């Protein structure tokens, strides 16, 4: 199995809740889709072409600030569990990890990881540059990514069209190639049933939402990924500003909803959230969805200061480390689903037990 301990903070510094609005916003991600001129896009390229693209990227990286020192993985040479592990940790996309039966892993699929920065090679596009930050930090994430993009683009020729912008395999990414997303926890808006209006509003503003793992993933545990829908026709700054303003507004609405909950349903909410904590603390078997939903409750309780002495970082880590591949990794063997549920409950229990002394 791969060793992720070599990564700065295991590649999960973005979970440390140190960023702005860390109690509501888990992380901010910005990615740029780019293709190298002279080669067919990944889906249509021959193995040899993909390997050449990979070699070109590898040769360029030592000169790129922020990625000169990196950890890299040839994703196509990893076992399915290792690939799932990287995906669960948000370090590679589902597409690159080849976890879909219909889209198996491609020769030359690789990832280069620096501190909060990553380059996926031979994803749907030749290059997916991404920056990941803790909390609500769009500008900071984009600034670090833009410098990587500029530097890499001065060494590799990107496919660019004067009218259509940066060219991508999927027409939904063409233009800026920029997708910025904010992973946000909105239990207050869900419980007050305001969420429908907020989500409809997002879509009117040209934004969209997805689940914890981006495109095609379900919303679980009240975690939403809000991102820009379009990539063409607006400049990078405009796209970021719009997302920034709308998410700032959503954060305010969530804060208001939480106040309303406390004011109008104080003891009911308090009881509900402590029960969630109790379940996580003592359950012997937990499915993924159950764990996410109870964790959502406990996260809300910590935000409302109904439960004290539990860090948001611990709760964030539970979200990632209680997933199937992480549990298999911790146990050192592949697990059947029922065993996974037992291992998950055991892991959550042990982690919460370590902080239980200070919980009140």
């Amino acid at each position, binding site marked *: 199995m791969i060793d992720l301990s070599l990564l700065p903070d295991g590649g999960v510094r973005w979970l440390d809740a140190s960023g702005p609005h860390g109690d509501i916003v888990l992380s901010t991600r910005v990615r740029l889709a780019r293709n190298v001129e002279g080669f*067919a*896009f990944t889906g249509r390229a021959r193995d040899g072409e993909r390997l050449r693209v990979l070699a070109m990227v590898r040769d360029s990286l030592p000169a790129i600030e922020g990625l000169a020192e990196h950890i890299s993985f040839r994703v196509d040479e990893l076992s399915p569990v290792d690939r799932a592990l990287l995906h669960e940790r948000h370090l590679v996309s589902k597409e690159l990890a080849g976890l879909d039966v219909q889209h198996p892993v491609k020769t030359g699929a690789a990832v280069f990881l620096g501190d909060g920065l990553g380059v996926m090679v031979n994803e749907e596009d030749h290059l997916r540059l991404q920056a990941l930050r803790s909390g609500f930090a769009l500008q900071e994430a984009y600034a670090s990514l833009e410098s990587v993009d500029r530097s890499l683009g001065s060494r590799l020729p990107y496919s*660019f069209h004067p009218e*259509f912008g940066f*060219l991508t395999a999927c027409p939904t990414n063409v*233009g800026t190639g920029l997708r910025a997303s904010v992973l946000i926890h909105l239990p207050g808006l869900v419980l007050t049933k305001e969420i429908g209006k907020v989500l409809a509003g997002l879509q009117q503003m040209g934004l969209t939402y997805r689940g914890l793992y981006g495109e095609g993933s379900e919303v679980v545990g009240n975690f939403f990924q809000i991102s820009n829908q379009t990539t*063409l026709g607006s400049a990078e700054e405009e796209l970021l500003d719009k997302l920034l303003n709308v998410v700032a507004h959503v954060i305010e609405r969530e804060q208001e909803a939480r106040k309303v909950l406390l004011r109008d349903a104080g003891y009911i909410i308090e009881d509900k959230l402590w029960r969630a904590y109790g379940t996580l603390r003592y359950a012997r078997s937990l499915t993924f969805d159950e764990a996410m939903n109870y964790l959502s409750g406990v996260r809300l309780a910590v935000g409302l200061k109904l439960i004290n002495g539990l860090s948001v970082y611990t709760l964030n880590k539970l979200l990632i480390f209680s997933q199937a591949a992480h549990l298999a990794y911790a146990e050192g063997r592949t697990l059947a689903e029922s065993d996974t549920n037992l291992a998950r409950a055991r892991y959550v229990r042990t982690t919460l037990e370590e902080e239980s002394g200070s919980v009140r």
Partner: protein
Amino acid sequence: MLCDNCGERDAAVHLTTIVNNEVRQQHLCEKCAAERGVETTVAKPKHPLGDFLHAVQQQAIAATSEAGRCSFCGATMNDFRTTGRWGCARCYATFESSMRELLRRVHGNSRHVGIVYMPPQPELDERATILGELKERLRRAIESEQFELAADLRDRIRVME
């Protein structure tokens, strides 16, 4: 101009014949020309060669429409419909007219207004190499006290920088 034969109708066919090395020009109306067996209407090709040329012409028309194939990666519009992905950067030029409409539907716009990208210019690298070489020669010229050469080299470096 009236028909050379009947002298009644306007001449529509201008026939050049060469008989016994003598060039003869005749101006005939459609009726008289037809009577002499001269084809005056542009009909569909009836011969195998004509059919072949006609087919090539149709293909050329198809190549510029949706039914075409990208000259770089070989992808067709049908491939795009199946996968939802273009095959390469050239596809954007090959299917340009359909592209604009598609992008307008997806993004409400078909014109990029963000970062304008300039690909790396190999000349820059060459320039850096030449500059490095000149500097090295300057160093050696100074070391060997060839001051006239050194001054010349220094001027060339200044111009390049």
